[in-house]
């Protein structure tokens, strides 16, 4: 079908018509061949981009990350760029805290919503859910940040903080050490809402792969829906669900603007969810302006970007591999 030789089209040639069309026919084939070549080069682009981005960041951050030992950079506790100290640890810890809180808040509701949509909801309800999730996903991060400022921070400050102070003060992780609502908790709440539509969509896709017959097999012996979910559906797709959650976490890690606006941006290693923190993306975003004015600052900040990239790549590749295998060729 692909490569037809330019032989005399003996048997198919009518007396007149065919002969004259040969140049056109050949031109079509040539166009096809050229297109194939061009297109195939173009598909190299994604792989190429990943490599270029990683290498570029490595090169630019080498003066800091490559030269100094890890315990002074990634695990280093002191961040004083003017003195040449580039310890990322407070920022890494900050990112970790916010992501863990955000994911912690998001996982259970997202799993429940996706289970609801997949196992209980009627088609009409599902049809209504899609626009809602799409809208949530489309809202720009900066608008989430505005919402965070206007609604979440006051909520943390005026409602959650007094509550924790009164009832949970004994537990260190809930200790209230600062008077404002700009905190990891606020960042976590905003993050949770931001990643929720994504996680729900992925989990739903995964649940959708379970054939209906399997559910029917369980229901036919008189199991309830929930028994079916716990006994048959979830065990079947558990690795995929975990991969979906890990993928969600990798997105939460990288969220910059919304979190930056509510998390306080104080350089410290947090000890409580009510503490302010300074996640890695926020560090990069807040200080890019000073990048060229302090020696090695640009290498450090780009090093922060590199660390972020590497962690996200690891989470991303692992979970995507699992998901691609479970969901077939491609997924939403």
């Amino acid at each position, binding site marked *: 079908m692909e490569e037809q030789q330019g032989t005399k089209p003996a048997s198919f040639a009518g007396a007149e018509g065919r002969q004259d069309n040969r140049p056109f026919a050949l031109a*079509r*084939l040539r166009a*096809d061949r050229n*297109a194939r070549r061009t*297109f*195939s080069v*173009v*598909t190299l*682009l*994604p*792989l190429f*981009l*990943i490599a270029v*981005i990683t290498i*570029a*960041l490595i090169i630019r951050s080498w003066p800091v990350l490559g030269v100094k030992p890890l315990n002074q950079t990634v695990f280093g506790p002191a961040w004083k760029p003017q003195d040449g100290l580039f310890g990322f640890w407070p920022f890494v810890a900050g990112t970790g805290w916010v992501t863990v809180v955000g994911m912690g808040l998001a996982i259970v*509701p997202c799993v*429940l*919503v996706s289970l*609801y949509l997949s196992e*209980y909801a009627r088609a009409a309800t599902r049809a209504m859910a899609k626009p809602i*999730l*799409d*809208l*949530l996903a*489309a*809202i*720009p*991060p*900066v*608008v989430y*940040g*505005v*919402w965070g400022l*206007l*609604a979440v921070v006051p909520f943390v400050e005026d409602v959650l903080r007094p509550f924790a102070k009164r009832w949970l003060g004994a537990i260190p992780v809930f200790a209230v050490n600062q008077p404002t609502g700009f905190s990891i908790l606020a960042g976590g709440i905003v993050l949770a*809402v931001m990643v929720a539509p994504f996680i729900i969509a992925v989990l739903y896709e995964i649940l959708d792969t379970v054939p209906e017959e399997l559910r029917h097999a369980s229901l036919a012996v008189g199991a*309830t*829906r*929930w*028994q079916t979910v716990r006994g048959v559906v979830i065990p079947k797709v558990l690795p995929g669900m975990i991969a979906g959650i890990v993928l969600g976490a990798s*997105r939460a890690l*990288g969220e910059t*603007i919304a979190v930056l*606006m509510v998390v306080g941006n104080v350089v410290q290693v947090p000890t409580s969810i009510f503490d302010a923190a300074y996640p890695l*993306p926020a560090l*990069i*975003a807040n200080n*890019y302006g000073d990048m060229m004015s302090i020696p090695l600052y640009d290498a450090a900040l*780009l090093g922060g970007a590199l660390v*972020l990239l590497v962690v*996200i*790549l690891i*989470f*991303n590749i692992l979970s*995507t*591999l699992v998901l*691609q295998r479970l969901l077939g*060729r*491609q997924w939403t």
Partner: protein
Amino acid sequence: MRRGRWERRHVTEALAKAMMYASVALVAGSLALILFTVVLRGLPALSWEMVSKPPEGGYYMGKGGGVLNAIIGSLLLASGGTLAALIFGLPIALYLETYLGDSPWGRYVRLSLDVLWGIPSIVYGAFGFTLMLAIGLRASLLAGIIVLALLELPIMVRAMDEVIRRMPVDLEQAALALGSTKLEVAMRIVTRQMMPGIITAILLAFGRGIGDAASVLFTSGYTDRITTSLLRPTASLPLAVFFQLASPFPEVQKRGYASALILTVIVLVISLGSRWISGRVSRYTVK
């Protein structure tokens, strides 16, 4: 017996359902809350002046003007980025489906697209910055467009790929059986059938690009003037919101909320509009 509803498993089911409803309410409620907050706080400060004028001197201290610079800047950035992404993205998506299908190479390409999709915009911004330094480009509209194109490419291709692979195989086979080459099938039939999905993908990427701040932060700079040149810095709505909120003057902060509202409205219009358009264009598609 038949009517026993208090068995443990039924109680568990009822509890589970209650928690599910609560979660659904939580998620739907969050959307409502976000929109409500933005409208409530943004609407009062919204005025014709805001959308029709760039900031005047002292704008950030309370003087007059608007965010027209940011509106136009964002539209230009997103349009340029989306166009650039489309130029590379559509061929990639078509090639993936038409030639690569399920082959190992196809899987690598898809994996790398998924990985690119997962890279946060701040990293794209940082990369864009290194690119700018390397080629000597200053913070400008062009740099912003390049970075947005990089950001939008995986989003667009993924969305297109998802649509294209839903292409009824019979349609492709029918065309091939009539003697079309694969290229022709790709260009004439796939694109027409997939037009609604392709449009949705483009608008999806556009919406993402216009809302992003972290990538344009490094690369497009900021200015109070309306952009006229590719090589000069340009304002963008997300950054406009950001800077206005950072001001100590409440009037300016309120205008920040209004700018956020403008941005939200633009994104909502695009999102709803893409549904409408794909509905209209799908008149000729095979269902």
